[in-house]
């Protein structure tokens, strides 16, 4: 069965936190163009920001040879963001989702980024670099709004 895929755009940035704003602006434009309202657009932007921030941290900052490639497409009825990087493989899905009541009771810190991503996106798939041409890939999907 063939799948219709429409590529909206691609952005490459160094794997550093000082360019996260560029990723946010790019994803925001793509999501708004695809019909998401402001709140859902903000959620998608936040999810991608969280993933890219994690990659930048694991790439050891200021190493400009590490890059992040963000590709946005529409496949069937889904908005799809694929985030590829050539930093060390790190599967954010290995981070368990915290119980927030316990989290606050024990004043914990960290680990919230991927929890946000799980909360706001419909589907997350991680493919480490060994099986993907030197680049790790994380694919986020969200159902397109009903027109």
């Amino acid at each position, binding site marked *: 069965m063939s799948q219709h895929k429409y590529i909206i755009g691609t952005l490459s940035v160094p794997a550093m936190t000082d360019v996260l704003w560029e990723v*946010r602006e790019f994803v925001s434009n793509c999501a708004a163009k695809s019909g998401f309202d402001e709140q859902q657009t903000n959620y998608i932007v936040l999810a991608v920001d969280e993933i890219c921030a994690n990659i930048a941290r694991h790439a050891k900052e200021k190493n400009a040879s590490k890059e992040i490639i963000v590709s946005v497409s529409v496949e069937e009825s889904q908005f799809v963001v694929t985030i590829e990087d050539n930093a060390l493989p790190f599967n954010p899905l290995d981070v368990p989702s915290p119980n927030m009541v316990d989290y606050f009771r024990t*004043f914990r810190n960290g680990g*919230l980024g991927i*929890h946000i991503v799980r909360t706001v996106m419909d589907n997350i798939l991680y493919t480490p670099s060994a099986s993907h041409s030197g680049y790790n890939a994380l694919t986020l999907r969200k159902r397109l709004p009903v027109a």
Partner: protein
Amino acid sequence: MSQNFEINRANKGNIDFIKIKGYLDAHTAQVLERTIEELVKDGRVKIVVNFRDLEYISSAGLGVFMVFIEEIRNGGGDIKLVELKPKVFTVFDLLGFPMLFDILQHEEEALHKFQTN
């Protein structure tokens, strides 16, 4: 066009006011962290953070408040968060932060709570 982050500080007696402006993400969160760290080191633990001009927050920004809240409350203080735009409040609310943090409409409410507790 980049997305900047700015902090302005003021105080009234033993209460400190931090106004944050712009975009609070994994890059800029360290600026806020240093600011609160300096206050806590000086024993200043009654802190009001004004979000009126904050356009964006990610988990790195939320994390800054988690770093200090236990120490600040143990020291008899609190971090009160005021004037959050709906799009910023939504991020706090998504993770249940209103369970732990006092999120208020106006600075005056925060001031009143500090003065009466």
